[in-house]
């Protein structure tokens, strides 16, 4: 088993356990590569990758771009705000125009759920979903679970709680799939208004009390409140949200065990976690960012190896 079962990375739900294992083992090698004095390998020098960002992103875009450059791929960047999308061009036309310039792979972030799946059926390139609306963000879930594996030895049997805005979060959904695939127990915790109905059908526990959730878990993944996706009020005020669902040092110290704190970024310091928690040894937030490059290198490398010449 040294090949992915898929030709695109559209979501964790399309992967199997062996795929994740292969991505992690490949990422281990790339992690060693990016800690060398010269961090670049020539594998993908005949591959061109287009980064299409129809929605804002800093970390993910930088991380993908760095991963691509470390693999020696040629990279072109595109963001919707400066493009003909504004002039009324359709997604397929936009992408086909880019592909006619001999592009082999597309990394896409799009506000509409399913945009990646749609594109994969209509264009001839390998697609990596870098976030599609509130649907999936597979590379984030891979780097999150990879970071758990790195910190705690394995993902299997670990208890992970995802705290915050589950309703609007693609990170939550991808994480649930990735954690369950690797044998972890998953709980979601947040205000009732931000937890989707029927989420228990995915086999996750639901908790609305943060202290109980933290007492149960080994790892807490703190999500950002996505104000930009909220057209109505889901909770009375940010201050009230912080009082009930924000993690601070006192709360962590009062637990009877030391849990690991994760955050996919960007952090709203003082809202979902306080600064002293974000900067503490229990937090692996910056490890997640570093692992993000290694994971994305692994995904791009493995998908590129399936593109025939």
């Amino acid at each position: 088993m040294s090949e992915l079962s898929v030709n695109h990375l559209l979501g964790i739900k399309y992967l199997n356990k062996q795929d994740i294992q292969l991505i992690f083992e490949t990422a281990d090698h790339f992690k060693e590569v990016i800690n060398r004095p010269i961090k670049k390998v020539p594998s993908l020098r005949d591959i061109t990758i287009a980064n299409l960002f129809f929605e804002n992103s800093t970390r993910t875009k930088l991380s993908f771009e760095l991963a691509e450059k470390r693999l020696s791929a040629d990279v072109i960047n595109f963001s919707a705000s400066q493009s003909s999308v504004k002039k009324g061009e359709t997604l397929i036309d936009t992408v086909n125009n880019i592909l006619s310039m001999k592009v082999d792979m597309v990394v896409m972030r799009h506000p509409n759920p399913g945009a990646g799946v749609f594109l994969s059926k209509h264009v001839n390139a390998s697609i990596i979903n870098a976030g599609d609306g509130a649907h999936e963000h597979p590379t984030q879930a891979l780097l999150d679970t990879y970071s758990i594996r790195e910190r705690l030895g394995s993902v299997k049997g670990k208890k992970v709680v995802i705290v915050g805005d589950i309703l609007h979060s693609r990170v939550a959904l991808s994480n649930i799939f990735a954690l369950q695939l690797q044998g972890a127990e998953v709980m979601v915790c947040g205000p009732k208004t931000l937890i989707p109905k029927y989420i228990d059908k995915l086999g996750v526990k639901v908790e609305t009390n943060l202290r109980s959730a933290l007492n149960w878990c080994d790892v807490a993944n703190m999500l950002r409140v996505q104000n930009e996706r909220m057209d109505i009020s889901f909770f009375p005020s940010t201050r009230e949200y912080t009082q009930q669902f924000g993690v601070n040092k006192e709360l962590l110290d009062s637990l009877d065990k030391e849990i690991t704190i994760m955050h996919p970024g960007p952090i709203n310091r003082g809202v979902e976690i306080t600064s002293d928690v974000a900067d503490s040894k229990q937090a692996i937030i910056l490890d997640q960012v570093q692992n993000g490059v290694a994971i994305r290198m692994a995904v791009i490398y493995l998908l590129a190896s399936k593109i025939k010449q």
Partner: protein
Amino acid sequence: MSQKVLLNAKEVNIILHRLACQLIENHNDFSDTVLIGIQPRGKFLANRIAKMLREEYKIKNVQLGHLDITFFRDDFRRGDKPLEANTTEINFVVEDKKVVFIDDVLYTGRSIRSALTAIQSFGRPKGIELLTLIDRRFSRHLPIQPDYRGRQVDAINKEKVKVNWAEFDGEDSVYLINN
């Protein structure tokens, strides 16, 4: 499939001692030299030579690393089988050192070409030499020759030279396999 023994355990042992002595002739106390086994199969030979230098010839500071060349190969996406990576362990700086690449079989020379590129990620060595147990003559694709050679073998392309190591394959031996 037929196979022929090219070297048995005793012959392998004699050759390894000779190679170790040739290295000592050129590198004295190894203070300026590092040994690099090329993954995957060169690792066993490199481990063996390093152990011999340390234990039998009492050389204290033998530095040994393993280099994986997967991401530097020139046949990515060209074969049917995907390339599988191995671990690289180089816990020292190669800047200004004499590097000795160690591999079990030298065939087309393409692995060594990749290794020459890969090692540059760890600095600029003073010089690079190549030690190989088996040198398959007349089959090079590139102008690369070994500095230390165990045995020269004439084999045609459809034949395969397989080096076995006691610690991994159960015995020290070299076979010529005809498919």
